[in-house]
């Protein structure tokens, strides 16, 4: 006998609608807390693992390559200028609707860093990989210790 009984009438197809309703309240972590406070002061920090010779941005508390700690002496300021590694333009919003105007996101390798940072690209029309860009911060009074304290990156004025 068949495992599935065929449903003959469409009104017998039933679905139960529901919403998963939770809110995440995320702490930034030991390194993240310090990193965001840096943004609030208009500074972008990285941590450099002396053993692996790799600089993480955003700053991390440990090196994922060797699991060694990245203590206070490993914090260095990077940027605020850097090189655009790659970019994309978004025409579709997360809910599937059209994104008007489109947003542009880039991967930026800040000067002095090895890891790349993802953020908005602003104030520019033409973007090319390899071009030089610089960080644009919100005015100090509007900063709150958030990744949004950085408005984004714009082409570096020559």
């Amino acid at each position, binding site marked *: 006998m068949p495992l599935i009984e065929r449903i003959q009438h469409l009104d017998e197809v*039933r679905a*139960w609608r*529901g919403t*998963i*309703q*939770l*809110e*995440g*309240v*995320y*702490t*930034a*972590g*030991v*390194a*993240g*807390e310090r990193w965001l406070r840096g943004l609030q002061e208009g500074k972008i920090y990285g941590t450099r693992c002396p053993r692996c010779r790799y600089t993480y941005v955003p700053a*991390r*508390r*440990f090196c*994922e*390559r*060797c*699991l060694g*700690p990245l203590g206070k002496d490993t914090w260095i300021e990077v940027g605020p200028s850097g090189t655009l590694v790659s970019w994309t333009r978004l025409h579709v919003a997360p809910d599937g609707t059209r994104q008007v105007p489109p947003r542009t996101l880039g991967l930026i390798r800040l000067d002095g860093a090895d890891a790349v940072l993802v953020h908005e690209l602003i104030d520019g029309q033409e973007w090319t990989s390899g071009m030089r860009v610089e960080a644009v911060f919100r005015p100090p009074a509007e900063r709150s210790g958030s990744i949004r304290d950085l408005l984004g990156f714009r082409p570096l004025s020559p």
Partner: protein
Amino acid sequence: MAGRRVAIVGAGMTKFVRRALETGQELAWEAASKALESCEMTLDQIDAVVLGSAPDAFDGVHMKVEYLSPGAGAWGKPTIRGYVGGGTGVFAAIQGWYHIASGMFDTVLVVCEEKMSSCHPHPQAAFNYIFDHTLERPLGPNLLWIFALEMNAYMTKYGLTKRDIAMVAVKNKRNAADHPAAQLGDPHITIEDVLNSEVLAWPVQRLDVSPTSDGAVAIVMAAEHIARRVTNKPVWVEGVGWSLDTQYWTNRDLSYPTYVEEAARKAYAMAGIREPRKEIHIVEPYDPFDYKELHHLEGLLLADRGKAAELIALGIANRDGDMPVTPSGGLLGVGNPIAAAGLMKVAEIFWQLRGEAGKRQVPGQPRRGLAQAWGDLMQVGTVIILGI
């Protein structure tokens, strides 16, 4: 014994707290780096990583283990996630065992993490989504229902009182007072405190329940030839077992955890244990609620059905009793960052058998211990037996 001999050679953990500043990644790193340091090993000596964590909804990070992986030393290494709900902590150690027993790897770092404080309005809310979406969730259930329903079935079947069960909470929270990582240790708690605590879902009251916690635990496992080089006190995995009951929980006998018995029988057979009550010297059964410790002792065949409370009442389960039960302080006392809590129990047996448990040390040089966890939709039993 199947496969190669495998030992635990190191362990580390974070303190368990209600809310940590640390991200989940940082918690994983704190535990992992402590575990490596404890056996003087470095990440480049680790062949593979097992990462255990319970539902993604707690941390609020989908594909949570991929997110956690940098802190667990998984960069550039074969890595697997263990996930059987609350049973995860012990299951992750079992996965570490078979990674090595199979001959595939010589060393494995096992890390379990949970950061429940991220989940609002309350971590319990994440559990709403374990219920059947069509037949149960429309009734507006909460997680406590399922435990309260099981606890009542267990109490009624064997004529147990709330007082019989409250003794477990008292014992474990007192034991936890001697655990340096404990969130809720209390040397002075009494049965009256438990019986007078707020009713949540009768018969479950506030102090019958473990807290929600942030924390991580890690262990290092190694094949025999490595283990003997790394330490003069390897703790051997002697037996493992796990089993799953039907997801249709309303069709089960809620008064007895058959799945724990099935898991235990597999582990005993592998360890060559015929009389578990004589041959197991310390037990760390899973205790997210006080009645669960009793339920699980019966499933583990360490007490007759309905009789586990007598072990507590007679002091047999005390740290200085004939069969110490939950000398760590358990989930009720040390705290319950879900997956990490299960692995904490494995780490406790490791420290106890090595004589390194400090103020919690069980007297008489115990030689064999058992850790057990439980989870999924109240349906999985995971058991590991360790010995020296």
